[in-house]
């Protein structure tokens, strides 16, 4: 509705030359979806992004490849168990993630920076915070998305094992118990790894550097811990072995599950932590998860402005 229209050839008076035209902008009067919706969207987009869905073909390759690499050994084990009519699976549910830790580490290292570093580098974080969401929403959505992605990665092979075990007519109650224990353990592992990966990645806008930093923290700490454990075991100070395990994420999870989830520890000598030591393991694991959440909150308090 053009109301103002300077018509004709008549030259307007000098004071009339500036005027505001209504060019038909409309204000939005649909439903406001609000904070929870924005948080959900951020969560689902980040989760899809962690597997390359909704991104270019090139960025689908790596996560999908790692997912396949993660599941293939489980499928092979199941096939062998069915073919040979074995009495039990060749590998415990709880042990699977420990054996495949290199793949899990690579996945975290490649996807955690993908999730947060690029927002920092292209300075899109302030744009997120100009929406109704707040720091806590952003951190929770990203944390939950990466943890869920990791859970999918680590739980899928367990599901393959479980279904395969039932097809091979292994004991139902026994397998269900093992499967449930495995799920609890990988849930803890997912939260822990997601937290550590995101904290490191959120401190660098460079994706490449973030990847290297995450993998360095995960593998070097594991390498150092397992070397020290082997030496402590060889020196006959077996009591120290579980305590050394506190210092790397994967041995931490291993300690928790061998104390409470009926797993056999992968520690040298096969000595897992006792129940009392296991409580310390659980506390440290939960403390690390809480600490990484706190650190992320602190980081994004500053970076959003």
């Amino acid at each position, binding site marked *: 509705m053009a109301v103002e229209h300077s018509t004709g050839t008549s030259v307007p008076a000098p004071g009339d030359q500036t005027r505001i035209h209504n060019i038909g902008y409309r204000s939005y009067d649909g439903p406001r979806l609000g904070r929870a919706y924005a948080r959900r969207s951020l969560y689902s987009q980040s989760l899809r992004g962690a597997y390359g869905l909704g991104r270019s073909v090139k*960025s689908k390759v790596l996560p999908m490849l790692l997912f396949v690499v993660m599941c293939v050994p489980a499928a092979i084990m199941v096939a062998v168990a069915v073919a040979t009519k074995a009495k039990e699976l060749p590998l415990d549910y709880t042990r699977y993630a420990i054996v495949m830790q290199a793949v899990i580490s690579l996945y975290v290292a490649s996807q955690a920076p993908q999730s947060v570093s690029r927002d920092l580098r292209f300075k899109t974080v302030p744009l997120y915070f100009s929406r109704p969401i707040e720091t806590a929403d952003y951190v929770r959505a990203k944390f939950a998305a990466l943890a869920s992605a990791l859970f999918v990665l680590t739980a899928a092979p367990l599901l393959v094992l479980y279904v395969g075990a039932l097809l091979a007519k292994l004991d139902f109650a026994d397998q269900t118990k093992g499967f449930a224990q495995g799920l609890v353990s990988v849930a803890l592992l997912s939260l822990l790894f997601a937290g550590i990966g995101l904290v490191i990645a959120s401190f660098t806008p460079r994706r490449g550097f973030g990847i*290297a930093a995450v993998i360095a923290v995960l593998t070097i700490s594991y*390498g150092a811990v397992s070397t020290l454990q082997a030496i402590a075991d060889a020196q006959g100070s077996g009591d120290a072995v579980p305590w050394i395990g506190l210092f790397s994420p994967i041995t931490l999870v291993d300690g928790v599950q061998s104390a409470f989830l009926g797993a056999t520890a992968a520690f040298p000598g096969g000595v897992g932590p006792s129940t009392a030591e296991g409580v310390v393991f659980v506390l440290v694991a939960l403390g690390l998860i809480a600490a990484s959440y706190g650190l992320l909150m602190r980081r994004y308090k500053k970076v959003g402005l």
Partner: protein
Amino acid sequence: MYDPTVARLTYRALLGRRRALILGALPLLLIVIAVAVRGLAGADDQTASDLLGGLALATMVPIIGVIAGTGAIGPEIDDGSVVYLLSKPIKRPTIIFTKLIVAIAVTMVFSAVPTLIAGFILNGNGQQVAVAYTVAALVASIAYAALFLLLGTVSRHAVVFGLVYALVWEALFGSLVPGARTLSVQQWSLAVAQKVAGGELVTSDVGLTTATVLLVAVTVLATWYAGQKLRSLTLAGEE
């Protein structure tokens, strides 16, 4: 073939601000572990060899190599600022060669030096273990830097592929499939170390001649091909 300005800029990109601290954290950890092991187990040649072989040469050198090799060129290509470098009247192979020298120097300083120190702490260079592994780390630094610099020019996901090679191929496949060890920088450098140590402690699956030929071939070919890639570099936008 060597351009001091490009070298200075690359050094700054690799070590500037807080990055040197992060790169320095890994060697520091190795030395701390060496001190702890010496305190816990005393001087023992086998332990020293295991620790230097397993932690220093197998994990630390490749990771530092990935960071330095891809970091020397990857971020520049990634954010597009490499155009400003390429538009200068400097030959592209010169740029690659300079960046390679810098990457090699950084990898050597942050991996071979701490290996030597850790070796001396562990057993005071008994049976030449410390020197042997330092030589291995030096040799491996050259090959890793060249290899990962090439990866940096070829792929946007250079770091991931570098790590997959270093950790999955060399560590996992190397321990499962004996044939994979022939194609592993780690084993080639161990072959050189074996020659230096001369004892039973440091062993490699590859002969010295094969190892030397392969090392030189990989380094030269990777550098040459990286120069070629840079000559025909297409600047892609963010994925």
